[in-house]
């Protein structure tokens, strides 16, 4: 390893970059390079895609079974038998339209983890010092990261949902596929999955920045998404307050947000669910921003 000699010639050729300023777009481009030059990000995105599409395929098989049960129940009603509890044929068609979100819960955990690691690994490797030396304005640095991770996670969510739908068409009974063509609801479901993944990445980036630690950030996401949901569902019967609160937990809100066929007068509409979910995800993001902006980078 030999270094270049510093000669008078080098001095004369010394470039002048004083006209080059730090810009927000530059900071975003820098974060974009950082995101796409890490193999772990590609691996985690690929795993997310595989899990979401795989879950979609499995849900397609389950949808076929539900369709058969729904048809049987429908015929039973026609012949005067007592109605059987379970999804109706129309419900099953809505499930099929919204099959893109089948793997969303697992996928969203992964995209949140990607976001946690995107910032947490900077603290672990002390890269954050280099990042903040190049982009010393904390809000610019944080928003750049948020923007890049949002775009990638929205993209992977949308693509996974669309692929899940496409593959499900190969598995679903022809009776279902004939009844369920691509329409606005289907595309809205894909977009909603993308937005859901994006919001989860806000939560991940927020917790990662807040705790400055990969494991801690991921654990917080898991607690909020799974543990809290399971725990409150277990005790929901004991209190009406908890029962009323459970549909407003992030996981339940995610399902409500992406669901197809939600009535306009439903207790929580798609839009309301999306807005409440945004609050759940925006709060950690703001806390993370505050930690970055208001405290030392150590």
């Amino acid at each position: 390893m030999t270094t270049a000699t510093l000669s008078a010639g080098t001095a004369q050729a010394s470039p002048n970059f004083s006209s080059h300023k730090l810009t927000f777009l530059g900071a975003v481009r820098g974060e974009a390079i950082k995101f796409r030059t890490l193999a772990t990000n590609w691996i985690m995105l690929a795993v997310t895609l595989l899990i979401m599409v795989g879950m979609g395929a499995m849900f397609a098989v389950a949808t076929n079974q539900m369709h058969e049960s729904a048809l049987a129940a429908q015929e039973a009603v026609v012949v005067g038998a007592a109605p059987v509890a379970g999804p109706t044929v129309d419900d099953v068609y809505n499930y099929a339209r919204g099959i893109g979100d089948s793997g969303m819960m697992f996928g969203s955990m992964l995209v949140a983890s990607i976001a946690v690691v995107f910032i947490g690994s900077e603290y672990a490797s002390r890269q954050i010092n280099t990042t903040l030396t190049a982009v010393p304005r904390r809000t610019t640095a944080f928003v750049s990261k948020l923007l890049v991770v949002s775009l990638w996670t929205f993209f992977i969510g949308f693509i996974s949902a669309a692929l899940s739908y496409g593959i499900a068409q190969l598995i679903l009974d022809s009776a279902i596929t004939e009844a369920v063509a691509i329409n606005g609801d289907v595309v809205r479901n894909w977009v909603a999955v993308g937005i859901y993944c994006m919001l989860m990445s806000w939560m991940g980036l927020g917790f990662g920045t807040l705790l400055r630690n990969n494991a801690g950030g991921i654990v917080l996401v898991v607690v909020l998404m799974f543990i809290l949901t399971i725990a409150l569902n277990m005790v929901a019967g004991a209190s009406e307050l908890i029962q009323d609160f459970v549909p407003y937990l992030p996981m339940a809100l995610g399902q409500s947000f992406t669901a197809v066929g939600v009535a306009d007068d439903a207790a929580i509409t798609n839009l309301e669910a999306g807005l409440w979910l945004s609050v759940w995800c925006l709060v950690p993001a703001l806390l993370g921003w505050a930690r970055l902006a208001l405290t030392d980078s150590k």
Partner: protein
Amino acid sequence: MLEVRNLTKQYGNKAAVDGISFTVPDGRVTGFLGPNGAGKSTTMRLLLGLEKPTSGTALIDGKNYRSLPSPLTSVGALLDAKAMHPGRSGRAHLRSLAVTHGLPASRADEVIEMTGLGNVASKKVRGFSLGMGQRMGIAAALLGNPQNIILDEPVNGLDPEGVIWVRNLARHLASEGKCVLISSHLMSEMSQTADDLVVIGRGRILANSSMQDFLALANNDRVLVRTDERDNFARRLQERSVVFEAVDTDGLLVQAPTRDIARLGVDAGVLLHEIIPQVATLEEVYMNMTRDEIEYQSGEFAGQPTPQIATGTPWGATAAKEN
């Protein structure tokens, strides 16, 4: 130019940096010395806006680092050789920095070549040695060809060629009118590189002067004298109440002007075959200055060898004991 004014950084009850003030001028290499934990790195982090001062200011060309419109072209800094994501290649790391300021991708390649990392720049940083990490850190510092350069222990882990290169680089940058602040524990290296010195201990400035003035702080009137008649000459010195101490088997370290020592030798009829004024090294002055400021004091080994220059009992005392 870097300006630190009444800068204080408090961590709980402990002041890592305690009201320090100094200026690092353009066109000079300023060495930043101090024992471990003295506050050097904290000061550098405060200059780079990575930490907020409890009070005081740290300015780059009169501005707070965070308010610089073009940080990378104003200041190039190496604070930590391994402050890079291990899973990313060195080239990608530099390009991600360059693009923030709209610098061309070719500039990353230029500094890679400049620092001798051409063969490994495409490899992941996790495979880099400490020396390679230092070179990559220096490459990042040079990316925007900045006016001010801050290097924290830049020669750690470098091979001799790299050490010389860093020395020449610092001198070259200063010759271009740039402001260079370097911290190092390698005194011999610093004595060859720095024009000025800022010495810090326990968060306070102990010295802030040119290298020449700093070395003059040492008690420099000692002269090494060698003679075949050491006992005889020592007696003569003792008669005149001259302070001295024995060195090796035939030497005396005498605190007196060279001419007076030579005259005494002539008068006493003692042949002095060496009369050498002792020039204090940076290390000696530094060690004397920071002796009481060392936070992490090392223990002594049981079998620690005697230093080359004895500082023990004066000759007179030894002679009295023998009598």
